[in-house]
């Protein structure tokens, strides 16, 4: 069995566990410990129905992990939350993602405004070809955040556990850092726009094991102030860091669908669905 972190937050998940199609959902927006409420989300790429009928809640100040086999739509769901799918011309999103009572995937919503509240860290570190300092100050600048920039840069780098390694070379190009440092720089830069949700799309999959552990420790640290949703291929990682786990699988015609949402420990020790059990015990996937 996979080792599960015995963090105290496990077991206190507020969202009711939901099974696809069968769960009874709390009325959206009624629970203030829920920051994102996804309701019957469907995503299409052209004629391809990529994700069907996904519903789950993301509890505030916790880490929610999305796991499942390749192509099951977990990244697609993640990218709906901050409207990154808008960048794909053929993508179409139906359903609701409620955030502070507003449906972020609705027509009248400005994706730029959404992204200013819901930050994202990508699979491959993608620092801008600017100095370390500018990598962080840029986001604040374009978002109209005023104040002491030096202080902001330092705070963000400290929060991302990178300050001690880079404090003497803030003028150097961000691309000169190692992969793990670049990824922490990307996390720091996301924090600079002061989001309350941080989405992470396999943030450690391009990193070595030591850098991976650093990122995981960092996530645990950030959870106090931010809500984190992470997509990961690595089940041990989901088990180590997350409070709630959402398991996706492939349905008919390769449509991604949600199988099970549970507190992480429960999902890994006592899965309710046979498909979840097959996946986490390595019989499938």
């Amino acid at each position, binding site marked *: 069995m996979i080792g599960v972190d015995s963090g105290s937050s496990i077991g206190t998940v507020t969202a009711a566990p939901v099974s696809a199609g069968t769960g009874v959902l709390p009325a959206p927006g009624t629970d203030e410990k829920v920051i994102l409420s996804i309701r019957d989300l469907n995503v299409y790429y052209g004629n391809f129905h990529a994700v069907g009928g996904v519903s789950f809640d993301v509890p505030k100040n916790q880490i929610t992990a999305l796991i499942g086999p390749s192509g099951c739509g977990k990244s697609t769901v993640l990218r709906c939350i901050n409207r990154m799918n808008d960048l794909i011309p053929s993508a179409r999103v139906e359903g609701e993602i409620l955030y502070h009572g507003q449906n972020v995937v609705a027509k009248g919503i400005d994706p*730029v405004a959404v992204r200013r509240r819901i930050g994202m860290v990508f699979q491959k570190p993608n620092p*801008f*070809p600017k100095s370390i300092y500018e990598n962080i100050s840029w986001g604040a600048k374009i978002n109209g955040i005023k104040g002491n920039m030096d202080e902001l840069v330092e705070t963000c780098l400290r929060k991302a556990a990178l300050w001690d390694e880079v404090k003497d070379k803030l003028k150097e190009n961000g691309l000169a850092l190692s992969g793990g440092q670049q990824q922490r720089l990307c996390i720091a830069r996301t924090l600079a*726009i002061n989001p309350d949700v941080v989405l992470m799309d396999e943030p450690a999959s391009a990193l070595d094991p030591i850098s991976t552990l650093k990122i995981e420790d960092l996530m645990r640290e950030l959870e106090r102030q931010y809500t984190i949703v992470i997509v990961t291929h690595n089940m041990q990682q989901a088990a180590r860091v997350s409070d709630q786990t959402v398991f996706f699988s492939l349905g008919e015609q390769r449509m991604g669908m949600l199988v099970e949402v549970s507190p992480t420990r429960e999902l890994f020790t006592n899965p309710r669905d046979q498909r979840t059990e097959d996946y986490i015990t390595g019989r499938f996937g």
Partner: protein
Amino acid sequence: MPAIDLGGRRRDVGERVIGIVLFVCAAISVLTTVGIVFVLIEQAVEFFLQVPVADFLFGSTWSALFNNPQFGVLPLVSGTLWITLIALVVSLPLGLLSAIYLSEYADQRVRDVLKPALELLAGVPTIVYGFFAVTFIRPDILRPIFPSIGPFSALSAGIAVGILIIPLVASLSEDAMRAVPRALREGGYAMGATKHEVSWQVVVPAAFSGIVASFILAGSRAIGETMIVALAAGSRPQLVTNPLEPMQTMTGFIVQVFSGDVPYGSLPYLSLFAVGLLLFAITLMLNLISQWVVSKFREVYE
């Protein structure tokens, strides 16, 4: 004799012949370049035996085709620089903005039409741009604004050269911007940047080396441009600060001499090679600068 022949002598010979043929093809272009430089230098040396290098480089009167000719190249250099400057003022902003539009804003269908059309513009013979400058740009665009403009001027030639090199700037800059990884744009958008901010503050800086290289190549193309200036700029080598005046460029002078009846081996004839050598040196320098810029500022994205 073994039952199975694993020797491959015939294939060996064939491969070697192919290698030699390919080498010869590659060598021809290198040798041609060497030959051109050699001819230029050989004849230019003969010129400089009669005219001191300093008089040539720093003299301010060029009257090669008159009695008592003077060979101060500065008027030709200034004519060339004026035309190049005007051409760059026209082409850099328009080329860069077109590139940003094509790379960041245009949807696929628009780009599929626009980019080949733009590149077609580069295929129009330059002499046609020359007519265009004389018969349209000067009378219909410039004369209403500057009534004093004569039939030939650096301004009308420079604008036509500028139009000629817009596609070069646009196409090369667009290639540089398209090579910027998608992940970098996504990083920008995920920070709450608008399309405008991503284009100007993420993509353009990331493609900086390629964009600058396209500018320099455009400059060296403008310096070497011949037909347009021969038709539209006039043929009066003079050091002036007014682009409405006719001017002669280095290339323009070379055309004038070749189309005239300068005796072979005479001093004006030899001066062609000195001017040609200078032109070659300037464009070579620009190409070296552009290579240096590309290698110095290129960002490596794995």
